[in-house]
């Protein structure tokens, strides 16, 4: 497809001459991949394919390769840009505005929770920290019991997880953890709290620690270097800088998709639209964006469920200062975890949480830390000695934890209202206490939970007293999220969900949803592998239905 819109997206002078890293995107473009950069379109366009997939992240990528492999013509729509290893310079100042939704500053309606979500080819998989967990069995049990998802068992899903683990090189990380993670391991061990190694989707990882800014060595097996290139090699078309505005619905079918072309900065519309016609439409824009697109499209929603039950794994942080260097910016992030505070209590009881150790880079750490001026500068001056733990709260398993609801702003953009309930605050306090105790057990000089009123406590006793006295409230407590799930709940019961167990949208014959927005609750673990495995199964069933033949398996 050579057209005025065709653009390789790279200039030869862009990349380092003789870089030691081969760039698979550059090579693919040279082989003739059909990539249209919406920013370069000088006029409106109409495209046509068997299937259009909206979003190129975990769900969209897996679906694109599966369908292309089964001989279907596929168009992938992405709001962000096509970037690759030659663009990934490990600079926060460049990475956050170019690779994340809303410059990594997306927020809930009351601005109390900051949300990290990818916006680039590969979606969040291009910028995530590689943590790979199968969907925990207690989560699946809950879905079976409360949402009638009887086929969502660990046994049924196991072959799909295995296939995706092999496809994406998910394996045990044998390199010793960096000090930031090892402190979690040592502190937990002192207290008799079990901790274990995290599986990672990497191949030939250099152990640099910059996964969140795009992998500069292509070691991370994100959608950007796996399924999307595979689909493009099979003739799929990728349209970038194109925001899916609305699905045009006629009767019980989707007729077409209307996209707004965005300028090269990804901020403003260029004024051109791209219309895409297809036999089948797959929405995979991620939680928040997928339900918002369906709302803008007036998709059927007789029970008012669309956008509701959106979950975040509300995440809170504790910063410790150690005598020795921790260098949390160096080495693979998140290689040790503890599920102790998930496994030792009922899933539908008080909210539980997973503990991990995030990477620490100057921009992300400095903006996350509370306060300003001298006190803030004093903490930053000890940057190499800072250790951080985070707690991901498992939301959605209790009547007091119904998550948030997506709505549309006056301009049609998505807005998530996520009120933090007392049920969640109770878990936040317990998580702050548990993290402080582990950090002191590991030898911390001081520990300060990220809360505007918290002090840098000098002992576990002082921390216990201090944290128990803190007032837990939005804005003074730092709450973040990197895992957005739900909003297009999956259930065959139309009173419980807008999408069936097979991923097909209730009431529209040719529309599927294949992303984390399907999940009826949060996952209780980093969600990427849940999305890969579950959408691989859905995509195979869809391919079989569209072609009449069994779907081809994905292989590395």
């Amino acid at each position, binding site marked *: 497809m050579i057209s005025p819109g065709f653009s390789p997206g790279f200039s030869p002078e862009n990349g380092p001459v003789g870089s*030691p*890293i081969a760039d698979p995107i550059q090579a693919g473009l040279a082989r003739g991949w059909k990539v249209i950069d919406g920013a370069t379109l000088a006029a409106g366009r109409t495209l046509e394919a068997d299937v259009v997939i909206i979003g190129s992240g975990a769900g969209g990528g897996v679906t694109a390769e599966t369908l292309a492999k089964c001989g279907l013509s596929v168009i992938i729509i992405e709001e962000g840009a096509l970037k690759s290893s030659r663009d990934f*310079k*490990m*600079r*926060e*100042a460049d990475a956050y*505005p170019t690779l994340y939704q*809303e*410059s990594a*500053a997306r927020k809930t309606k*009351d*601005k109390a929770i900051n949300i990290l979500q990818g916006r680039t080819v590969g979606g969040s998989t291009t910028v995530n920290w590689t943590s790979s967990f199968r969907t925990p069995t207690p989560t699946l049990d809950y879905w079976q019991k409360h949402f009638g998802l009887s086929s969502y068992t660990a046994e049924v899903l196991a072959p799909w997880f295995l296939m995706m683990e092999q496809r994406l090189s998910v394996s045990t990380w044998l390199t010793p953890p960096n000090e930031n993670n090892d402190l979690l391991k040592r502190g937990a061990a002192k207290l008799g709290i079990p901790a274990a190694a995290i599986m990672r989707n990497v191949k030939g990882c250099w152990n*640099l620690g*910059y996964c969140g800014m795009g992998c*500069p*060595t292509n070691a991370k097996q994100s959608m950007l270097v796996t399924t999307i290139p595979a689909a493009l090699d099979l003739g799929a078309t990728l349209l970038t800088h194109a925001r899916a505005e609305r699905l045009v619905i006629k009767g019980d079918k989707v007729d077409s998709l209307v996209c707004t072309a965005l300028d090269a*900065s990804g*901020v*403003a519309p260029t004024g051109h639209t791209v219309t895409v016609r297809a036999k089948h439409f797959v929405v995979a824009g991620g939680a928040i964006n997928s339900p918002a697109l369906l709302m803008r499209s007036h998709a059927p929603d007789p029970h008012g469920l669309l956008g509701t039950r959106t979950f975040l794994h509300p995440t809170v942080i504790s910063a410790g200062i150690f005598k020795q260097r921790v260098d949390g*910016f160096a080495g693979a992030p998140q290689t040790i975890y503890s599920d102790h505070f998930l496994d030792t209590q009922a899933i539908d009881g008080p909210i539980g949480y997973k503990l991990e150790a995030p990477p620490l880079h*100057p*921009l992300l*750490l*400095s*903006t996350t830390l509370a306060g*300003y*001026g*001298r006190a*803030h*500068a*004093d903490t*930053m*001056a000890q*940057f*190499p000695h800072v250790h951080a733990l985070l707690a991901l709260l498992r939301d959605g398993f209790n009547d007091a934890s119904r998550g948030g609801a997506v709505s549309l*702003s006056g*301009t049609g*953009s998505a807005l998530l209202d996520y009120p933090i309930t007392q049920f969640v605050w109770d878990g936040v306090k317990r998580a702050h206490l548990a993290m402080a105790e582990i950090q002191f057990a590991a030898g911390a000089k001081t520990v300060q939970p990220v809360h*505007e009123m918290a002090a840098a406590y000098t002992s576990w006793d002082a921390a216990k007293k201090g944290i128990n006295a803190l007032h837990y409230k939005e*804005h*003074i407590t730092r709450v973040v999220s990197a895992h957005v799930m739900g909003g297009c709940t999956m259930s065959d019961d139309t009173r419980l969900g807008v999408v069936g167990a097979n991923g097909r949208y209730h009431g529209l014959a040719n529309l599927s949803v294949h992303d984390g927005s399907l999940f009826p609750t949060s996952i209780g673990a980093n969600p990427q592998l849940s999305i890969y495995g579950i959408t691989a199964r859905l995509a195979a069933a869809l391919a079989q239905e569209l072609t009449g033949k069994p779907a081809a398996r994905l292989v590395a």
Partner: protein
Amino acid sequence: MKVGALAALTLAGGGALYRALHPAGQLQRFVLGGEARAALDAMVPAMLAGALPALPALRAAAISATTERVHQAIRGLPLNAQKEVQDLFALLALAPARRVLTGVSGGWPNANAEQVASFLQRWRFHRLAMLQTAYHALHDLIIGSWYADPSSWSAIGYPGPLKELA
């Protein structure tokens, strides 16, 4: 508490005035006007006290470079978020609103560091969510713009990314 009620009124009044001067239309890119730039220049040294260089010439250059990076960071946000920041700075550029909301009486170029630090502290814990979220926005924009820049890294012992690939 009186200040809180007055602030709410001023916000409402200032918002109405601003909307009268700027009728709703298509969302525009953020523009950092002279008074807004002076406001940021006044807030940067308070937010970054203890981090900025001490030498006056270096300090002045660091402040204006940080303000400019904040400007660019705002211009990378979605247009509706740019509009929210534009509205905040438009309000802060109005002398009555500035006096009530920040206590800075003699104009931004003459604001002293103590005045600025004290209004930031009030906003940080303010019962009006709008001022509290404004504090957090300014916190993240200013502090983020400072530590994103390689010039700040040696002071905190951050070696930066691997040179061979950077």
